[in-house]
């Protein structure tokens, strides 16, 4: 039976984030926590593959206890089971330490629950947005990492291969990989529909399997959290914006003339607009 695990993360909604202009830090209280939008596509794709081929969809997250909400969101999308690793020892993890902790949890799922055929991650998160965790997990589990996947052509568990499209800057490539493997998926891979009532009801009462560090097997604690993270965030500041220029004045005609004067009288700018032959 096909077992797909989607890795998902709860993130602050960066659309709503406000910066504290005095301290140049993020006002976290202003930002509601949501399921990382890219990860909802990862879960949706897992659910669609289960509908196509049969099987089980699990989701896994590492995060603080409130991240259970993100797991419930995935149950709403249609996931079967949710696993969460939560422990103070995970705090401050960079992508290397995150992929290590998640790998240990995946190994436990694979050996104690059921073997894993496919792992699906989002392309990136909207907070750290590195996109490095997926490939990191794949390397640690010695699976081929397939990033930028935007279409799954075929999964053949019996013969042990998958065929996918990987998005390129100017098109796509068709890749065949052995199973098990890991995909990081693009947003355009699918559209996440509204949740169905039964899924919503199930999600509301759903309790995920929760593990602490002590529940994970063969774990090297020096590789976890801040201690296990080679990168350190040494300083944080608000990005500087370009200095505001001037608002033009006068009638629209006058303003347009002023603009034209700027563009057409500077050699470089003139060449830029006069050289063009249409787009």
């Amino acid at each position: 039976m096909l077992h797909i695990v989607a890795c998902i993360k709860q993130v602050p909604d960066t659309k709503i984030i406000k910066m504290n202009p005095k301290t140049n830090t993020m006002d976290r209280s202003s930002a509601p926590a949501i399921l990382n939008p890219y990860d909802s596509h990862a879960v949706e794709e897992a659910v669609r593959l289960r509908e196509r081929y049969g099987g089980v969809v699990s989701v896994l997250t590492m995060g603080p206890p409130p991240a259970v909400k993100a797991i419930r969101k995935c149950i709403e999308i249609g996931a079967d089971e949710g696993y969460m690793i939560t422990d103070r020892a995970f705090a401050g993890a960079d992508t290397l330490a995150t992929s290590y902790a998640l790998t240990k949890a995946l190994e436990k799922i694979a050996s104690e629950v059921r073997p894993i055929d496919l792992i699906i991650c989002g392309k990136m998160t909207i907070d750290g947005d590195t996109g490095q965790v997926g490939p990191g997990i794949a390397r640690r589990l010695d699976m081929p990492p397939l990033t930028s996947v935007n279409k799954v052509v075929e999964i053949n568990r019996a013969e042990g291969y998958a065929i996918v499209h990987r998005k390129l800057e100017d098109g796509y490539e068709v890749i065949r990989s052995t199973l098990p493997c890991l995909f990081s998926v693009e947003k355009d891979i699918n559209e996440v529909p509204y949740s169905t009532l039964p899924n919503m009801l199930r999600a509301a009462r759903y309790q995920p399997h929760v593990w602490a560090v002590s529940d994970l097997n063969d774990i090297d604690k020096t590789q976890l959290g801040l201690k296990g993270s080679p990168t350190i965030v040494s300083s944080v500041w608000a990005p500087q914006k370009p200095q505001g220029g001037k608002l033009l004045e006068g009638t629209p005609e006058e303003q347009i003339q002023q603009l034209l004067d700027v563009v057409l009288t500077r050699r470089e700018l003139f060449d830029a607009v006069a050289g063009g032959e249409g787009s």
Partner: protein
Amino acid sequence: MNFDDYRGVWVFIEEKDGHVASVSLELLGAGRQLADKRKTELAGVLIGDNVQSLAQIAFEYGADKVYMYDAPIYRYYRTETFMRAVLACVEKHKPEILLYGATSTGKDLASAVATDLPTGLTADTTQLDVEEDTGLLLASRPAFGGNIMATILCKKYRPQMATVRPKVMKALPRNKEASGVVIEESIPITEEDIRTKVLEIVRSTTQHVRIDEADVIVAGGKGLGGPAGFQVIHRLAETLGAAVGASRDVVEAGWVPHHHQVGQTGVTVTPKIYFAIGISGAIQHLVGMQNSGLIIAINKDPAAPIFQSSHYGIVGDALTIVPMLTEAFQIALGRKEEADAGKI
């Protein structure tokens, strides 16, 4: 780990359709500065099939040395083959710093290499500096969707690695006289060892102006009201021979395809002139276009943040101002007749 064994700044040279990707040339420029500051050498890592001629390009843009893996197995980028080559090279020659373009290839490769080494990897860097005496790389990057900038350090591991956004670093002027040393490398690897196969590569058939290469960009936002309103953007762009840019909201609304999107999750652009029309100026948009030469904003709300970040602003309704502006340019550039004849 003895840090003194690790010397030199390296750049992964990404090949694209037989050329060196422009981000790699930009990284050679940035890498040259870091190497000079550390009084060490700058090397490129070049992997591909039949790529000898590209080593010379790396020298012309600042490299002293190129480590080259040239074999048919590297014809297409695959994580497993490229990763093994880079890992072997790092283990053998021990660089202090290794930079990759933050392209889909560069990011994929760097994440895999970082895990295996292991070492720290700073993602999507937009500023780089190095401490002259300690060699500590100061890599700064946007996070939280561009809401903050962070400086990331990797104190305990070598090499220090970062992926760097295209278009934010400057390539050196090309020096055709330059030369350097090519060091041919190879590792034992056969097709049977590799678990992925590239079955086919499909290039998108519709030719579009690459906005990251355009001198002039006319970008439109949600303020245009709909696909019909957005037509005024296309018309001004055609008149100026400009590329069309868009905010994310416009792309998500489906008015134009994704490759037009400027910003944090779109393309970073540095045109000579950037028109931001009906765009509010959210930080995620600004990070993609704030290094444009001249920024002109048109917005009906005088309090729109975009005006804080533009050189000239017109407050008004884009649907009336832009057609007037288009006509004024057509007249000034002598293109009015072509336009009236329906050629523009």
